[in-house]
């Protein structure tokens, strides 16, 4: 059976790019590069930049992986390359 393997790979890379941008923004962006700026804002007793570096980025990472797994499952089925 012939699949549209090029289309499948384009869709996969598109999703990858989105996930990597968010991954970079929460950790390297909010947690490091813009931490000083964000520290002016407070989340409860947490300065926001500090929160991203020591708490927030980890929560976003988890959400990202599950979101990625779900989206990949949809892409697999759309291009009919899923398992069983």
């Amino acid at each position, binding site marked *: 059976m012939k699949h549209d393997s090029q289309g499948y790979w384009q869709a996969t890379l598109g999703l990858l790019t989105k996930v*990597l941008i968010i991954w970079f923004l929460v950790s390297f962006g909010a947690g490091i590069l813009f931490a000083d700026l964000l520290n002016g804002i407070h989340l409860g007793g947490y300065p926001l930049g*500090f929160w991203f570096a*020591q708490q927030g980025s*980890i929560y976003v*990472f988890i959400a990202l992986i599950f979101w990625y797994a779900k989206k990949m499952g949809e892409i697999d089925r759309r291009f009919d390359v899923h398992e069983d």
Partner: protein
Amino acid sequence: MDLQTTIYLVVGASFALYIGIAIWSRAGSTSEFYVAGSGVNPVMNGMATAADWMSAASFISMAGLISNMGYGGGLFLMGWTGGYVLLAMLLAPYLRKFGKFTVPQFIGDRFYSKSASTVAVLCLLVASLTYIIGQMTGVGVAFSRFLGVSSDVGIYVGMGIVFLYAVFGGMKGITYTQVAQYVVLILAYTIPAIFISLQLTGNPIPQLGLGSNLSGQDISLLAKLDQVVTELGFGKYTTSLPGSTLNMFVYTMSLMIGTAGLPHVIMRFFTVPKVSDARLSAGWALVFIAILYTTAPAVAAMAKTNLVRTITPGVVLGKADPFAADAAIKYDERPDWMKRWEKTGLLKFTDKNGDGRIQYYNDATKSADIKAKMDAAGWKGNELSVNADIIVLANPEIALLPNWVIALVAAGGLAAALSTAAGLLMAISAAISHDLVKGIFKPDISEKGELMAGKIAMALSIVVAGYLGLNPPGFAAGTVALAFGIAASSLFPAIMMGIFSKKMNKEGAIAGMLSGLFITLFYVFAHKGIFFIKGTEYLGVIGGANSFFGITPEAFGAIGALVNFAVAFLVDKVTKEPPEHIQHMVEAVRIPRGSKAVDGAH
């Protein structure tokens, strides 16, 4: 019941549990031995991966490091978790589809070259062996502190336990034991944290407690901590940087790609039934890791607060002046836990100004204003040194928790060290028996013969690891940086290019791996000596310490990875394309359909 008996009971019960699980799940085939027959449920696999990943360093040392570094300690938190996002998307599902037992096997097949797979075996062995030394020493320390035996006896007992369940159970035994070890270690970490968070902030969830106000005060814990440590001359807790922003950036990146490239972690994803399970399993692993990793910063900041509060009660609980003559407690009136830890040498007090009180502050502060106040108060230097490693272990004692909690922490520390040691041994034994013996020296070996070779390789690695644990080379501490540096600069880029570039050829991959490895070793050895031998540092050659834009050697793996990618693409451009069937293989690896049980056949 006294403390010692309670510890023996709890630790003994946990060991009995691990061995019982190993007997129940003996491995009968190479597939069960290497990858647990690829039949592990993704949630269970996530839990096992979490135990595998969280070593004695995560359990015992990390919170202490963060406690000293403040905000900058976030690089460990982000670095050691962010790697799982990369693993889940860039490596795990594709390697699972590829369907072989080991990482060097993928590199060897994809780059159609025995040399490539041999280079990969070499990187794997160096990275895993350096890592395992630390685990064995961790086992020794935990045993000697809690069981009252010598560190050497502790290592022998640890070797025996790992031997029993790793050699007979293989990956199957290790996986189910690690699930049990995860449960033990996570309870041991979170229970004391919950109690301490309640005491300090009235909020039982440490992750929320860290963002709450101190009990009975209208100032948040972090704001108070910032204020107190700044007065004592330390960097502000919520902003203090490790070196520079650039160094923190590169350090975090190195830990992330190092995590994604460490073979004993990657191998865990070969044990799940399907490609889609490999993606999910990385998510579950991170959930289980995050329970500890989001608790750690709370433990760190609260331990720092508790330490300062113990020494200068009025300053933390009220608005007392830390420079007043009676601000610090008298040494003779110190709490019992300090006395106990003084015996281990990890907590030390010297009365430099002879006033009988404990002055704890940063005597190297750069602020002239604070220096003047310290001089006026008649302080003659910091009088208390606290080893970072005692923060987690002493936590339940500092908070005056019951004996069973202290015993649980002992069992948790041992679980963390043993589970990681077992995972590393698995990766080493698979590389030796499968990639070297079967792949290169004796390709016609029978399954039974290979299984035996695997068990012998593992038994030998346990002896080597035990020997290195008993006679730790002087460089043990520096080598963890090397393990991550190697994984980041050699293995991660090679695997990634193998999947994401159809045209990458063997010349490019080998040149990339070697140059990434070489440049990283060159920079690390310049700081720490050639093969960590003292006196052979050559900082002059590279123009002084951290001469590359102020980047520390621990953080250099990311630069090595960049060099790897760049060299690989340049060499690839001037050499010929990989053969047709390899390009088809890459296409097949990219789609999930047609995945089969991992079988390892060559």
